């Protein structure tokens, strides 16, 4: 490629890290080597520029996959298993339907390997011979008239030899039925630090409890959908609603046995994802593509809401057991944490979700010794998958409830027990990672308490709660969230980012990182513009298309701004370096001069692109075998405070006020950052109080917005968002990841507040009015209580 340059991300302190270091040292930050910056005194990073694709979204012009129609296009639908486990004996196609009009795809039509390639190839694209959950795809149908499809799907019946199925973690652990591998275990981890066993005998207190969290549906408002077209010469093209173009690309290559250049994946505008469009889109793309290949026509598959809710992934249900040794002054001495998640019928992403959940299980506290045993197990339900937070909201719910329990046992306040155990700079996390930033969690806590008026309110509520039917309480949660892939993940990804100078002199960012509401497009353009001293309008971003953009990794794990943003910065600087080296650009330039130089370069040399590839910084060392070392390049830190009212007539909980304070490095776009936090807190409130998946025979029974309840505008409190900005040497302009952080804290803060209001502990979410009613009824019946508890009354 003529005019192309490949720049490696420097391991040494570059401009922004030098700048950051100076700021930390309390010296004025001078722009050191960047003559470009002199030309433009108004930085774009840190300001709330208009969302890049915002105008199209507010006018209804933005093009989502269901808005796209191709000539001659057919519509596809999926025949699913309906039973949790069994052997397929035969299919019957009911009379009364002209089956010749339908394209029908079975596993025999798969040219390559019948699997959805991800971590392991255990999940079939179409079940062949055996089914392992009730939403397993068996056959695919397509027809030009989409109205005829639902009836046709109904008219296919399947005869089975049923097999016994298992639905709970306990059944899976008991191994009465082996449904996956040799022991129903997808993956297990052991994290060990210090000599845990030595501590128990002499500990003043041993605090034990079990906590559980339920499945949660991502509930993006745009259902999943894909369009596929197949051309014998060119290969396969799919357009769809998705987070990770190269995940889909990888899966299709294997399924169709096609080389990379004959599979093309294009992301359309995507109407929300939250992790829910991380892995399952590969399945839908595969189905649309199989129908397209067989029919020779483009095929569109759009799920309706019920199919989307019942068949696609949800947050892993979890169970966490804590056993903690604590000194009489409230210091944690040792802990044993047993963290188990239900992965559903196939492995999919469960090992990675488990990993993040396990690493976050110790939270933002110092554990002199700890043993964390984590495992992901199999049940005959559809595979659970990625959802904002990725295991951390589960293990942090348990931990932050447990900290309140420890406080109670020791006789300290929830505030004090946290303060005494916070991680400090220089100390190590559960994996042995040294905290090497100047985070002061005690100060963060103090600020959150002040902003929420915690102490005064708590005192006032304690008095007021003695009468009346409305009980009020305050609850806190302190936590952290690691940004980027865990451990060596980023090194293995080796993400590549490109920046192209276009013929009109503007720049175009080339990444597979996708926009689905978070602001990827906008923030990456801000970064590139500031890296070169250009205006926001001088920079654009390419539509993610695997024929056009390099693999900058999946859009997950709060990694885009921090990891990909940094690479965008490097690749952008590469353009300038090439221009100055060629003599087309002076050291000092205006945005107009920069554009003119780009135009001249492209006119003379043709296509002009520079690339940057990730290299792991030397201070990030990870031992995958022992699960020790630097788990994440950076952590964001937070303290959240919830104020709740429990109405003892309806048992309804309302969140009256919510303070979300977090340290997230540099805030690159205040409006977008605030939007991420508020949106995450809202999902966290749903996770805690509203969103309950009802299971029956391994299938979600309430797969409708009518009976799976998410918060509306009338349900949510004022969510007050505050930032601290310490900076981060590994992120673009000092940024850290923030997308997932706000999902971690709301549930424990709210349940802690409910306990504060009612003096009744709750260990499971979602916590619905009927659960509170049941617990209070139980408490009211003295015979139901332990003798010691009765004696206390």
């Amino acid at each position, binding site marked *: 490629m003529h005019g192309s340059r490949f720049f490696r991300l420097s391991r040494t302190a570059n401009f922004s890290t030098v700048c950051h270091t100076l700021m930390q040292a309390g010296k004025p930050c001078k722009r050191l080597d960047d003559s470009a910056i002199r030309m433009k005194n108004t930085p774009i990073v840190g300001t709330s520029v208009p969302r890049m694709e915002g105008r199209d979204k*507010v006018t209804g012009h933005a093009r989502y996959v269901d808005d796209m129609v191709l000539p001659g296009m057919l519509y596809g639908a999926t025949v699913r298993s309906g039973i949790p486990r069994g052997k397929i004996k035969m299919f019957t196609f009911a009379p009364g339907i002209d089956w010749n009009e339908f394209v029908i795809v079975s596993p025999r039509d798969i040219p390559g390997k019948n699997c959805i390639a991800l971590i392991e190839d255990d999940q079939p694209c179409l079940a062949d011979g055996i089914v392992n959950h009730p939403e397993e795809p068996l056959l695919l149908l397509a027809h030009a008239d989409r109205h005829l499809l639902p009836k046709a799907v109904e008219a296919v019946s399947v005869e089975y030899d049923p097999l016994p199925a298992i639905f709970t973690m306990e059944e899976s652990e008991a191994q009465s039925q082996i449904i996956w591998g040799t022991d129903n275990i997808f993956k297990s981890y052991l994290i060990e630090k210090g000599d845990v066993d030595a501590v128990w005998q002499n500990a003043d207190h041993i605090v034990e409890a079990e906590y559980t969290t339920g499945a949660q549906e991502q509930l993006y408002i745009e259902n999943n959908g894909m369009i596929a077209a197949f051309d014998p010469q060119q290969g396969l093209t799919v357009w769809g609603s998705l987070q990770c173009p190269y995940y889909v690309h990888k899966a299709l290559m294997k399924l169709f046995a096609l080389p990379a250049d004959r599979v093309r994946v294009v992301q359309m505008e995507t109407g929300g994802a939250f992790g829910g469009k991380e892995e399952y889109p590969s399945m839908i793309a595969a189905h649309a593509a199989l129908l397209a290949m067989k029919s020779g026509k483009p095929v569109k598959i759009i799920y309706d809401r019920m199919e989307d809710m019942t068949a696609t992934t949800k947050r892993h249900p979890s169970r966490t057991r804590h056993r903690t040794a604590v000194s009489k002054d409230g210091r944690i001495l040792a802990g044993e944490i047993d963290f188990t998640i239900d992965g559903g019928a196939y492995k999919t992403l469960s090992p990675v979700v488990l990993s993040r959940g396990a690493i976050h299980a110790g939270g933002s506290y110092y554990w002199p010794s700890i043993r964390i045993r984590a495992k992901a197990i199999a049940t005959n339900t559809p595979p659970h998958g990625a959802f904002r937070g990725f295991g951390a909201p589960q293990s942090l719910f348990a931990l932050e409830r447990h900290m309140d329990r420890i406080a109670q046992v020791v006789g300290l306040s929830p505030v004090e027990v946290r303060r005494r155990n916070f991680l400090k700079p220089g100390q190590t996390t559960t994996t042995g990672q040294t905290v090497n930033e100047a985070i002061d969690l005690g100060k963060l806590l103090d600020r959150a308490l002040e902003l929420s008026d915690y102490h005064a309110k708590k005192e006032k509520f304690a008095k007021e709660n003695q009468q009346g039917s409305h009980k009020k309480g305050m609850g806190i949660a302190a936590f952290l969230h690691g940004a980027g892939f865990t451990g060596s993940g980023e090194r293995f990804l080796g993400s590549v980012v490109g920046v192209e100078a276009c013929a009109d002199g503007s720049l175009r960012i080339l990444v597979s990182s996708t926009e689905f509401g978070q602001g990827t497009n906008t923030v990456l353009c801000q970064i590139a513009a500031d890296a070169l001293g250009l205006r926001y309008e001088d920079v654009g971003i390419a539509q993610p298309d695997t024929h056009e953009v390099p693999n900058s990794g999946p859009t997950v794990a709060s990694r885009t701004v921090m990891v990909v943003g940094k690479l965008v910065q490097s690749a952008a600087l590469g353009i300038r370096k090439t221009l100055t080296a060629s003599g087309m650009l002076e050291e000092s330039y205006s945005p107009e001069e920069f554009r003119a130089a780009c135009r001249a370069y492209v006119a003379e040399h043709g296509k002009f692109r520079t690339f940057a590839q990730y290299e792991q910084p030397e201070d990030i060392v990870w031992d995958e075998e022992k699960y020790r070392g630097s788990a994440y390049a950076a952590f964001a830190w937070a303290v959240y405070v919830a104020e709740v009212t429990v109405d003892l007539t309806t048992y309804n909980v309302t969140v009256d006020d919510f303070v979300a304070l977090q340290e997230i490095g540099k805030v690159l776009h205040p409006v977008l950052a605030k939007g991420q936090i508020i949106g995450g807190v809202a999902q966290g409130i749903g996770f805690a109080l509203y969103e309950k998946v009802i299971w029956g025979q391994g299938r979600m029974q309430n797969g409708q917005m009518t009976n799976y309840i998410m918060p509306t*505008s009338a349900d949510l409190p004022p969510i007050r968002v505050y930032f601290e900005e310490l900076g981060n040497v590994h992120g673009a302009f000092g940024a850290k990841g923030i997308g997932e952080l706000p999902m971690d804290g709301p549930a424990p803060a709210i349940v802690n507040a409910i306990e504060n209001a009612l003096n009744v502990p709750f260990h499971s979410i979602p916590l619905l009015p009927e659960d509170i009613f049941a617990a209070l009824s139980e408490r009211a019946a003295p015979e139901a209580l332990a003798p010691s508890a009765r004696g206390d009354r």
Partner: protein
Amino acid sequence: MNASSEQRAKCEISFTVNEESETVHAYPMERLLDVLRHELGLTGTKEGCGEGECGSCSVLVDGLLVNSCLIPVLQASGAKIVTIEGLVSDGRMQFLQQSFLDCGGAQCGICTPGMILAAHHLLSKKPQPNLEEIREGLSGNLCRCTGYAQIIESVEKAARLGVAT
């Protein structure tokens, strides 16, 4: 059902969409949402749930804010329908669109056309709504991204801009 019986099942239905007269050939029980999107190419109206819960498919029918996924197209016969595309030059709509851009009211954008139509409907009935009225007025429109705060802020700002002119 073969092609000829399908033709017989369809019928001609006329109405006004965004001030244009339209006649469509559709199944009488087909959802207005599908007719707008598939027959007329008005894809600014989105499907979210298909059961009247989420409000993404909101349109105005004879001045009323309705979920177009719940309306059989036959029922819209003779009606005046307005979609997001039809309000492109409406002053109040422009304030709303600008405010949604400024305040972060749109994230993934899929609920946005319906949300903005609901807000437009609210402001046309009540140009200066208080916070509770906004929360209530938008409570039929679900958004999973924003937690609503920046949407509410957008509507408040649009109301202020409406007064200023």
